[in-house]
């Protein structure tokens, strides 16, 4: 017992010494040399962007450009997939802007409204969905009908089932999962009424893995954004597309998508929460985003820029939203 008592008193002595020493030094430094204190930026200087992995490169590029001129605004970007972004981030109110590679669905608008989030739609360009095959494939051009046969449930099993000129080999499919906006667009616009999208295929949200898979598998086919094809042109072959038998085979390119010659061009959007727009950083960023959406910044990333009319109407819509 005495041992612990001594121990305790010894400790309290050293603690007092410690206190006295720090106290003296603090007091000295207080007296010696002083400077004024200033406040720094508040909490609301931030913009949170989530959503489609297709729109992510655009948002991220513009975020970087925006932050070069507005160093105090923190724009964070994330790629969650279109649907994932709506249901997990945007509608619960955790993010200000959600990128989308398809229009918002009614159910999603409902969820958003239930949480008091009012989504505003701005189209910021489009993407040429690219249907790619293995480099050695003999196929050059496909129609929407043939694509629907390849990609619908209970459709073709071998290439020869679709077209007797094609090899009698089993089709290996690679594509985005059902949470992806690319998937939704393809199901609604290419397969359409002729059936439902096949469920048995290699699916991944990571487009690089799709490229990897298709380029290493013979008899493979898959679809993804044009930007990924442009970066890997020598590794796989993009199919030319015609909407129907009378159409003209057109290879994917930014120009062809812009002119409307390439049929598989789908619009890209950002959705902004009406409430978030009342905050200056969000408003400024969205304004910057829309203004930049018709410039080369978009085509450098690998997407089709929006046209001037679209920018005009978007800016007007933005103006109205805050007044």
């Amino acid at each position, binding site marked *: 017992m005495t041992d612990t008592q001594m121990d305790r008193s010894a400790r309290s002595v050293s603690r007092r010494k410690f206190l006295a020493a720090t106290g003296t030094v603090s007091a000295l430094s207080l007296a010696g040399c002083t400077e004024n204190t200033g406040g720094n930026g508040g909490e609301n200087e931030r913009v949170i962007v989530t959503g489609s992995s297709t729109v992510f490169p655009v948002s991220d590029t513009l975020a970087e450009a925006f932050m070069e001129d507005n160093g105090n605004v923190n724009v964070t970007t994330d790629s969650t997939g279109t649907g994932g972004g709506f249901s997990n981030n945007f509608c619960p109110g955790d993010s200000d802007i959600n990128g989308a590679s398809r229009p918002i669905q009614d159910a999603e608008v409902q969820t958003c409204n239930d949480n008091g989030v009012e989504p505003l739609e701005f189209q910021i360009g489009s993407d040429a969905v690219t249907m790619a095959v293995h480099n050695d494939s003999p196929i050059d051009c496909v129609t929407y009908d043939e694509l629907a046969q390849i990609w619908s449930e209970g459709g073709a099993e071998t290439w020869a089932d679709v077209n007797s000129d094609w090899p009698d080999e089993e089709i290996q499919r690679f594509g985005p999962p059902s949470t992806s906006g690319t998937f939704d667009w393809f199901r609604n616009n290419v397969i359409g009424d002729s059936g439902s999208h096949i469920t048995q295929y290699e699916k991944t949200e990571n487009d*690089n893995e799709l490229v990897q898979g298709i380029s290493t598998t013979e008899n493979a086919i898959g679809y993804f954004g044009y930007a990924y094809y442009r970066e890997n042109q020598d590794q796989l072959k993009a199919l030319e597309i015609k909407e129907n038998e009378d159409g003209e085979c057109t290879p994917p390119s930014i120009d062809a998508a812009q002119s409307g010659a390439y049929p598989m061009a789908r619009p890209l959007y950002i959705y902004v929460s009406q409430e978030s727009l009342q905050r200056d950083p969000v408003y400024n960023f969205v304004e910057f985003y829309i203004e930049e959406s018709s410039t080369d910044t978009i085509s450098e990333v690998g997407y089709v820029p929006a046209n001037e009319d679209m920018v005009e109407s978007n800016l007007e819509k933005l103006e109205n939203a805050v007044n």
Partner: protein
Amino acid sequence: MATNQGTGEWYGTDEAVSRVRGQAFKTLCLGATLLALLAVFVLLLYVANDAFRPLSADIGWLLSFAATVVLPVLAAVGYYYTRDTKAGETATIALGLPVICLLLAGGVFITFEHIVSVYQWLSILVSLGIAAAIVAAHNRVRADADLERFAVIVGVPALLLWYVPDVILSLPVLPTQSLALLGSFAVPIALATGWFVRRQRESDRDGAIAAAVTIVGAAAGLGVAPVVGLSPFVWMLLVTITGVPVGLYVESVFRRGAGVSGLAFPVLVGGGILMGVVITNALGFTGPNPWLDWGFLTSSPSRTPEDAGFYPPLVGSVMMLLVIVVSAFPVGVGAAIYLEEYAPKRGLLGRVVDLIEVNIGNLAGVPSVVYGVLGLALFIRWGGLGSGTALVGGFTIGLLILPIVIISSQEAIRAVPDSMRQASYGMGATKWQTTRNVVLPEALPGIMTGNILAMGRAIGETAPLLIIGAPAVVRIAPASFTNKFSAMPRQIYTWSSEIDVAFRHGVLAAGVVTLLVVLLLMNGAAIIIRNKYQRRD
């Protein structure tokens, strides 16, 4: 065995028993070991090659560095290994300690730069000081009021921490940053150094000298640092965090006089690098163009691979680790102490405890993504903490490593021999005194080793961060625990899905190497602590 003495052979060494199976088994095991090592080694080599791109350098550059650094190092390693193993040990620590300390200094720098400003730290320290004074005074005035003292010990610091820092921060004038750091950081470290030396040497004078040298060394930065081109702030961190431990270690090696020649090793490495730089500059050889360079560590992520950096995720990882250290470690160690020292061992309750322990083991095996979902539901949806913040990230990954912390701490406590507890009881100590004065000090190195290894697991976790919404790209390092943050593995994951190949090969590899270096150093520190502890037995 006595019967076999004549031939000197063991029973079973003749042809009667086949040794083929044994030999085959041994070879298979060796093969498995080599395969595992080779796989890891090739992977590391591949990643390091991508990160540093040594082949982009002139052949002359490579040759001169081989001559000035690699050859001397190999020679020295050969010497230490064959002639002087004691010095080899010294050499390892003498080279490793400065590197670990520099890393730690970087961590503290990030902490002061982004997490608690020097003034906040000063105000926290002052309020804790006042709290300690009040507790001490209470202790003196009402020495017998145990329960009341408990309330004072818990309540006073909490109250003061809540009110005093704001008061101090709102003062119109404060000391300059360097002076504040000197007072609030260098002085406590100097006092701790003095106390440590005094205890080691059992000499008041030596302690005072050590403390004074530390203070003077740190304060010298106010004058010297600008001349050398450093800010006084960085100088002080370097002196207190790197200079002091290295100085103490070098001094202890000289004092013990064993393996002194090992101290030449870091000098050899440093001098070799310096000479290599001088030679290549003089001869005009261009070095490699690595992805992993100073710019990578200090700049923000970018869409241009050449400009891409790792700084905000580094800060994010440090913040997350701080949250884990503050939240998960006390809880985990507390639970381990209860389970080992207090929990009933027999009867119905003992069974329940057994069940709990088994399930803690099971929890350690639950996939990390499940913890991510738990964190999302618990902290973000139910608790209302913002998504993707360092606080939520730290809590979620804290939950993930909690079972590991508990189990490793339990192991450490269990390793304390029962005879020590019995001896303590025999001297009339209570259970609390035994736990506090005998078991915990003895188990502490083991607990720390386990906790550092758990931190290594925590720093590499990715899946929970994806689930709790840590963003793909954060360009401004988070300024508080409630800001959106990114951590190192999260950023690496982002780079893995970039369109540009340069991201997926170069920048990603640089990130991986950075993360691996941090991880290896943490594990190295854990091993050093464990070895030091084992030698004491």
